[in-house]
């Protein structure tokens, strides 16, 4: 269900944009998704396709670009990807702090035809 409401919002925003620009249809939707949000590509594809039925976004290609969550090390300052159950800095072992990277969820661009 998580992806269903997201898909509805995506279809609503992109078709409104197509209408405002007097385009015939939305041919591509490109999303940026932080991996910490847990949105699955397959689910997004499924729900966007379902929500888009009968709208100008019907049949639009969906690109999903994932962004890895990054932690920053308070000791040596580097940013790094986390390991499974550890937040420790690979360089110095200090425990890292979560950054904003990895929590993105936005429509980057769309293509209209």
């Amino acid at each position, binding site marked *: *269900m*998580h992806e269903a*409401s*997201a898909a509805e*919002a*995506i279809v*609503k*925003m*992109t078709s409104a*944009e197509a209408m405002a*620009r007097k*385009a015939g249809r939305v041919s591509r939707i490109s*999303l940026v998704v932080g991996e*910490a*949000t*847990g949105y699955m590509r397959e689910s997004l594809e499924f729900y966007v396709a379902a929500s888009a039925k009968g709208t100008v976004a019907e049949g639009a290609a969906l690109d999903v670009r994932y962004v890895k*969550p990054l*932690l920053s090390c308070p000791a040596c300052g580097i940013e790094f990807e986390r390991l*499974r*159950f550890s*937040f420790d800095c690979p360089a110095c072992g200090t*425990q*890292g*702090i*979560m950054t904003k990277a990895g*929590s993105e*969820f*936005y*429509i*980057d*661009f*769309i*293509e*209209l*035809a």
Partner: protein
Amino acid sequence: MRVELKRAVYEENDALAGEINRGLRERGIFTVNVLGSPGAGKTSLITRLAERLAPDALSVIEGDVASDIDTRALRALGIDAFQIETGGDCHLNAPMIKAILGRMRLSDGSWLFIENIGNLICPAEFVIGEDLKIVVASAAEGSDKPYKYPTAFSRSAACVLTKGDLAQAVGFDEGFFMAGLASVAPNAPVFPVNGRTGAGADALALWLREARDALTARSAAADHGRA
């Protein structure tokens, strides 16, 4: 034709949440969005807080996929509670809160607690008009929750750890939990609270009062700046 949108998927929800929050703020109502897994102790915690924030007026919005068991339990205790049944949706959103607020009569200067759907994933993604989120985690769920659901913890201003009385029985590793929390929510204080006895809830009630007073002072300063 390519159009650079660069727009948040939930911008409409977020804008409405901002509007709801401004309306509540103007009336001095402090709103807390309570996140946590099913059975973590959210309703128990709200009950324990209601006892401690009295005599201030306090209302509760209960979000559930189905059933109004929690709402009826709170009402039986004399707590002003309202039910949102999402009928399958895994989180509350701003339009749901706007709709139910139209049916509630909140007093100025009161507390509003919103118990979100039991789930550590989707509710974390949505602002619904709150001043802050708190996340309730129980020892019984295991100590790996901050690692598995970082967003729920990182977006919360405080973490409440319930069921500490069961920690030994379930092998809860407090050090591991705290280390995970320190990474994802370095500024969030942790309050151990027993949801049944209320032990530990005084400190959380005090922290909430301080958070409310600090926000009131900030808004007053901002109003003064504008005037």
